[in-house]
Each structure stands twice: as C-alpha cells, then as structure tokens.
C-alpha cells in the first residue's frame, strides 16, 4: 500500500512553506504499512541495546510503537496502554487528525491510522511523576503514539529517547504526541533523538497549556539521516509559560529540520525559545519558528534566540524566526545568527596550548551548553553529554 492509497490528503513537499528544508525524498514511494508487533527475538535483541537505567525514573519501552511489558517497569496508576482495536470507533483516531487540517498534521494523521496502541499517561491532581520512555525502532515503520494529560497542579518529569536496535537498519519512525497541561500543572520534558544514520525520523508534538501551566521542553537531535520535528503549541490558558530549547547537531549528509508554531491565545502567555544548531560536513539544519500572538493575548511576551554554527565546508543552515503579532500590548523579540567558529576564541585557546581539535570541540560544547544546561535531572544531563561526545571528538564532556 503506498501513501496515495492510505490517505486522500497529500504528503508535504518542499514547495510547502513549512517543509521547505526537510528531506522528503523517497517518501512518495515509501510503503507506510502498520508496524509489525515485535517477537520475543526482537525483544531480546532490543534488551541488549537498552541504555543503563536511571534509578529515579520509571522506565517504559516501546518497540516499534508497541509497549514491551517485559522491558518496562510495572506501570503505576495513571499510566496505561490502550489497544486501538478494543477502543470504540469514535476513539480509534484522535480527533484533530481524522482529517488533517493542513499538511503539518499529515504525519500525525498517518500515525493515528497506523498506530496499534496508544500509551496514555494521566496524572491526577497534585501528583508528581518521573518517567522515561524509550522508543526503539527495529526495522521498517514504527508508529509510537503518546497521549499525556496532566490535571490541575500535577508535575511530570519526562525523558523521551529515540534509538535504533541496530546501527545500520533503515527504519522510519513516525511519532505522535498529544500533551495537555492542566491549570497550574508543570511538565519538564526532555527529548533525545539519536537514531542511526540510515533512519528517517518524523515527529508531531501537539501541546495545549491551560491557565498558569508551565512547560519546559529540551530537545536534542543528533541522529537519523533525515529528521523532521513538528511542534504545534497553543497557550490556551492565561499566564501560561513555555521554555523551549533545542540543540540540533548534524554531520555527514544529515538533514535535521524543525518547525515550531507557538500560538498565544490567552492574556499573559510567555514564551522563551532557544535554538542552537551545529552543521558539519555536508549536513543541513533547518529551523522554522513561528510565534503568533493573537488579539486575545495582551500582555504576552515572545522571545526567540537562534544561533547556528557552520563547521563544514558544504554545511548549510536555513532559519526562519517568524513573529505574527495582532495586539499592541506585547513584547516580542528575535535574534538569529549564523556563522563559523569565532577565530578570536580559537586563537585564545591555541595560544594557551590547547590542541586545535580540543579547542574546537570545547567551543562547540559551549555553543550548545545553554540548551544542555536546561536539562533538570543531573544524571540525565550527564548521560546526554556522554552520548554526544562522539559528535565532538577531543572535547571534554564532563
């Protein structure tokens, strides 16, 4: 079954404004079949590649989008797996995606059709939870689907990691996350994508923030031959706050693209957005950050800081910091820079006897340090630093 047969709505192309810089080649002939349920052999193979467990986190493992009870910790109250086939018809697909509103929802819609299970997290009022979700792609297509809802005053610390079972196998991951943060609730969300260099990775993250909700999101993307993240966030409640940080590291011929649309629909909404990208080799980094402040959102503030570093001769960075403002009671700023490593800084280090490779690595670390520093759990932060060390040979990771 090809894409044309699975959905009447069309696949995005590079002619679509928000998909200009994504790598979409080959998708029109790709077979978007539902993922195959993992066998015990697959599960044992995955068990051998799982990263070390972090003690304070409850671990949940999804293999090609299917929940693995064997590899996961026992699920506490509020966490559950919904098997789509057992759901009533009107719940089988998640409403917003039945008919995609635009091509931006295309992959979410596809996920909704093909994901066999939905992992649900419901945190009741005033509860607090720390959770690690590992999404492992083994082969072919994978459709992880997460529904997360935080009720009033709940707090969730969530680490979401995307890996492959092998270093070479081609996989296509299509992740869809729906996140609802209730009044006074707080989510601290860290997402790490380090799939193998044959993989293709797409995700759609839809977030709604209620009154005084707080969302801190840190995303570190260093894997996949081609990756594309779509974040669609709505400040629905008054005085809600978002801190969004992302580091995108691309090497070789990787293409990392991200589109983040943030809508301020209620008074007093605040957004701070930070993007750091490093492209080496022939890699391409794309970032399209669209902030909208509607007429219903006076007293909003929106700040974007975007910096890209080009270290490869043929590396490329395409950034679009966009502001769309419909009220005068607003403070909105954005800044974007693209350039190479600062020669003065490099000279400073070389003149103090630091080898050039190490000096360059240190400067690159410093470049993304703003983002990594926002990861709140020290053990997780250290783990991510260590896993990124391969990207910066010669640099100190500690």
């Amino acid at each position, binding site marked *: 079954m090809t894409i044309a047969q699975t959905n009447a709505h069309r696949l995005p192309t590079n002619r679509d*404004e928000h998909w200009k810089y994504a790598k979409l080649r080959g998708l029109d002939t790709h077979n978007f079949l539902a993922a195959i349920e993992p066998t015990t052999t697959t599960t044992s193979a995955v068990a051998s590649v799982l990263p070390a467990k972090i003690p304070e986190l409850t671990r949940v493992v999804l293999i090609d989008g299917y929940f693995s009870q064997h590899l996961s910790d026992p699920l506490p109250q509020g966490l559950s797996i919904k098997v789509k086939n057992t759901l009533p018809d009107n719940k089988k697909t998640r409403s917003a995606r039945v008919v995609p509103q635009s091509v931006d929802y295309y992959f979410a819609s596809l996920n909704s059709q093909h994901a066999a299970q939905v992992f649900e997290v419901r945190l009741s009022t005033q509860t607090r939870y720390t959770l690690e979700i590992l999404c492992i792609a083994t082969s072919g297509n994978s459709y992880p689907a997460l529904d997360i809802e935080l009720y009033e005053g709940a707090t969730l610390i969530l680490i979401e990691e995307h890996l492959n079972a092998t270093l070479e196998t081609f996989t296509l991951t299509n992740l869809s996350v729906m996140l609802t943060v209730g009044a006074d609730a707080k989510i601290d969300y860290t997402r790490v994508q380090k799939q193998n260099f044959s993989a293709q990775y797409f995700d759609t993250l839809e977030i709604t923030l209620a009154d005084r909700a707080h969302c801190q999101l840190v995303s570190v993307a260093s894997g996949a031959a081609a990756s594309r993240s779509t974040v669609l966030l709505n400040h629905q409640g008054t005085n809600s706050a978002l801190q969004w940080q992302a580091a995108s590291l691309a090497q070789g011929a990787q293409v990392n693209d991200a589109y983040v649309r943030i809508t301020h629909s209620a008074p007093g909404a605040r957004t701070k957005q930070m993007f750091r990208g490093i492209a080496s080799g022939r890699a391409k980094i794309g970032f399209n950050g669209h902030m909208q402040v509607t*007429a219903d959102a*006076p007293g909003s503030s929106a700040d974007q800081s975007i910096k*890209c570093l*080009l*270290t*490869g*001769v*043929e*590396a*490329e*960075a*395409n*950034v*679009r*910091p*966009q*502001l*769309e*403002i*419909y*009220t*005068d*009671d*607003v*403070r*909105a*700023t*954005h*800044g*974007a*820079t*693209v*350039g*190479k490593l600062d020669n003065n800084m490099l000279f400073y280090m070389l003149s103090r006897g630091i080898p050039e490779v190490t000096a360059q690595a240190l400067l690159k670390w410093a470049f993304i340090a703003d983002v990594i520093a926002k990861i709140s759990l020290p053990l997780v932060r250290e783990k991510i630093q260590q896993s990124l060390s391969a990207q910066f040979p010669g640099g100190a990771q500690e």
Partner: protein
Amino acid sequence: MSDNAQLEALVSRGYAHGFVTEIESDSLPPGLDEDTVRNISRIKNEPQFLTDWRLRAFRHWQTMREPEWAHVRPHPVDYQALSYYSAPKIKTDGPKSLADVDPKLLETYAKLGVPLHERARLAGVAVDAVFDSVSVATTFKDRLEKAGVIFCSFSDAVQKHPALLEKYLGTVVPQADNFYACLNSAVFSDGSFVYIPKGVRCPMELSTYFRINAANTGQFERTLIIADEGSHVSYLEGCTAPMRDENQLHAAVVELVAENDAQIKYSTVQNWYPGDENGIGGIYNFVTKRGECRGRNSRISWTQVETGSAITWKYPSCVLKGENSVGEFYSVALANNYQQADTGTKMIHIGPNTRSTIVSKGISAGHGQNTYRGLVKILPTAHGARNFTQCDSLLMGTQCGAHTFPYVEIKNSTATLEHEASTSRISEDQLFYCIQRGISAEDAVNMIVNGFCKSVFKELPMEFAVEAQNLLAVSLEGAVG
C-alpha cells in the same frame, strides 16, 4: 484623552493629493489580449524585438496565477476591466519642450509640489514626470546630456537607444519572474531610462514622479537604470493618485545594473492613495524592484518610505554578484486604517566578500497589517559574505498587526549573518516623559516615531527626508488616543 477631538480633526485631514485633473486623454478600451499588447507597442512605435518581447511575456502571463503567499488580502482584480493605456491628449506630435506641455499638467505637478519649470525646480534635481501611461516631461535633459548622462522617458529610450535597451531590458527582472512583473512586461507603457557612462558622477539627483489620474486604468511603468564602470547616481521616486472608491492597480518593474565600482542610490517616497478610513478604495501597489551588482566593488542602496497604497507588495532586492559588492535596504513602512503592507527585501550573495545591510522599520496603526518579509541567501561561492539585518515594528492600537517573516539561507560556512527584530508599542514611559515636559501627545508620538525611523531617514536625500518626515506625521496623526 482630552486631545481626542483635536486628534480626530487631524485624522480627518486625510489625503492631500487626492484631486483629479480634468484633462482630455487618449485611452485604449478596457480589455487585455494580444491585440492590446500589439496596440500599445504600435502606439509607442516600438521596434519588432520589443513587440515580440511583450507578446512572449503576455503568453507566459496567461499561464500564471496571482501569488497568494503574501500576508495581504486584495479584492480580486478584473484584468479585463482595466484600460492598459491612457495618455493626456497632446496637440502636436509630442512635447518637444515644456512649452508644449498642457498647462493643466504643469499645474497638476505644481500642486503636487513637483514644479516642472526648470527655473522653479529644486536646485540640482532633474525630474521625469509620468502621468498615467506616459512621460509628460523630463527636465534638465541638456545639462545631463553634456555630462554624458542619458535620462529620458522609456519611450524615448526605445526610439533613441534601442541597442542599450535590448542589451539590458529584462536581464535583472526576467519576463516570467512573477505574475505582476510578467503582466508589466507585456503592457508597460512608459517609465524612466537612465544610463550613466563610465566614470561619470551624475551632476544632479534624478527623479521620477508618477501620477495616476484616469479612472479604471492600471499603471504599468518600467524603470531601467544602468550605472557603468565607476559611475554614481542618486535617483528619487515619488508617486500619488486621486481618491477613488475603486482599487487601482500599479504594477511596476524597476531594474538596476551596477557595473565595476559603480554606485546606485534609489530612494522612494511612496504616497499612493491609501483608501479611506474604512478601507474603501486605494492603490494596489504590486511592484518588482531588483538591482544587480554585476561588477566588483559595486553598490546598490534602496531606501523606501511607504506610507501610501491600500496594499503594498514589494521587495526591492539586490543580487550581489561582483566581488566586494554591497547591497543596502532601508525601509519605513506604515500601515494605518485598513492598509496592508507586505514588504521587505532579498539579498542574494553570490560573489566573495559581498556585504548587505537591512534596516526595516514597520509601523502599524488602526486596523493596518504590516509585514516584513526578507530573504538573505548566501550561496556556496560567497566566501566571507556578511549580512546584518534589523527589523523593528511599532504597534499603535489593539486592532493592528505587525509581522516579521525573515528567511535565512546560508550555504557557505565562512559567511556571517546577524538578524535581530523587535515588536512593541510606544513605551508609556517615553510618552509620559515628553508630555510632562509640556509636549502634546501628538507631537510626542511624532517625535518618538521619527526617532524610531531615524536610521532610515538619514539615508534619504535631504529634500526627501523632510517630505518623508512630514508625510509620516500626517499619516499618523491621531493614531494614538
């Protein structure tokens, strides 16, 4: 606010250039087909290459669709209902001198503050006056000719300098560039032509004044400026139109070519009729402006003050091909009442060590929607290229919108780009500071807005800077209250 009545009065002062000149004119009947294109070409007595060029453009235009990506919402334009040629009737073959120009026309330009009598003109500015579809007068031709400068209407250039025209026409903005440029290529009626020879510094500012007068017409002029090696020219452009309830289309094309070490400074004060306070009427200003820095060390600088038009859709751009070439864009765009502006620039860096600067100031008031849209593209060949962009927006009122859509595409790792933007309203602290020192709210707003736009105004030639400041003050009066 106690000043409200006074502010209302100032707002209702309205558009000063909205009168209509009752003058006989020759017009083509409404409609657009190949015969219309041939007729325009025949009236202008054009050589065959130009007729064929127009027809190629027209055939391509028929395959194109109006662009929809801009943040503007025009009413549909009925291209078959427009007349594509309208010219004031002349008693002789054509005005040989100012004495032959209809006194009513001279009076019109005097009313607009553009005196065509050379003795009364501003010192050091030569003017080409374009009325509807034709150029009615060009001043100081002789003095310019002595310096070797060609400054004439496009129609004159077709007759007198066809070789130059054939060499350069459409080389910067190709016929099929976009919907409106393609339409212009098919039906353009007149415009200005400038050629500055090698090593010549143009002895005076050159200026074109565009006036739409006739109803149910579109204005499709074309400007071509060529600055040969080592030359320098400063060119000013102004425009107005009568107040009418229907939207009139203005789709112009401007092409600039700067060879080695040449410099072109192109300044615009755009004051087309913006429509009334309810958004009725006004000009649709859909313009394609582009300059090519072909030679090393060449420089093209665009400065624009956009206060008029119901809808503005224009992106004066620089293609920086020559080594060390420089592109600049300074813009103030105002959208008041129901005006919509989607304007900005494109800086395409191709040559090594090319530099560009973009400074854009957007002001939104009433129900106005103001969009900055800019592209900075640094290609793999542009080693050491640099760009600095600053775009700030000022919002005055809760119903208006200010939008910033920059596109940054960097394909060379030795390039450096910096972009910064801010959006805010006039600070109450600043207003309070001025008011408590006895400055009226209106004057305080003007002062603050002028300060906001200062970095652009200082790039304008002096006469235009004064006009621009006054224009902005008139356009904004009463916007805060």
